[in-house]
């Protein structure tokens, strides 16, 4: 696609529920990132994929968070047993690693609200 697409745009769920957030990167971008942005904060790194594999998942806060990218394109961020503290905007970004410009292209984010 022309840009990074994230769905859903907004998700409201109850504490303890399971949620999935989807990211469709720019075609041809091999690198994909998930960031979390809490209210009034800058984004916080969660995980980075190079192709299908998670090259760095050091930002995932705990084992309730998991992400996959099975075919090296679309990625899904999965959150189990959601807690109120998980409420945030989850941003996805992609880049062409070969270009090595350091520039990331972001989607509009998925706003998660846990009640």
């Amino acid at each position, binding site marked *: 696609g022309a840009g990074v697409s994230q769905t859903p745009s907004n998700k409201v769920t109850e504490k303890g529920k399971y949620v999935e957030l989807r990211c469709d990167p720019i075609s041809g971008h091999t690198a994909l990132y998930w960031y979390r942005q809490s209210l009034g904060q*800058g984004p916080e790194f969660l995980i*980075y994929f190079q192709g299908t594999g998670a090259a760095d998942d050091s930002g995932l806060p705990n084992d309730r968070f998991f992400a996959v990218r099975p075919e090296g394109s679309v990625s899904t961020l999965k959150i189990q047993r959601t807690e109120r503290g998980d409420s945030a905007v989850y941003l996805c970004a992609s880049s062409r690693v070969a270009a090595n410009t*350091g520039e*990331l292209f972001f989607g509009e984010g998925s706003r998660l609200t846990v009640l």
Partner: protein
Amino acid sequence: AQTVTQSQPEMSVQEAETVTLSCTYDTSENNYYLFWYKQPPSRQMILVIRQEAYKQQNATENRFSVNFQKAAKSFSLKISDSQLGDTAMYFCAFMKARYGAGNNRKLIWGLGTSLAVNP
């Protein structure tokens, strides 16, 4: 560890005037990238301008320019002829520029500066 500090939580400027947003950072790396991203209410982070640390010349993109002071670890953004559409959150960000294994291109972000352009 790298840190990015934006000391101005909020700024305002009159339309057509010039405003400067501050950013300082801390790193032991010699090669890195610095960025200013804009985040309007739509939430999408949009790259405003990018600077490579090994380049001494300050980056410029139309009305946007930076003052990059490597020794002082300072990276300020100047917006000239401010427009109403410039109203947004502005984030300064840092990225290591190591190549090959070990460089995951993780961005380290400041807390942002909320800029209001007034008519």
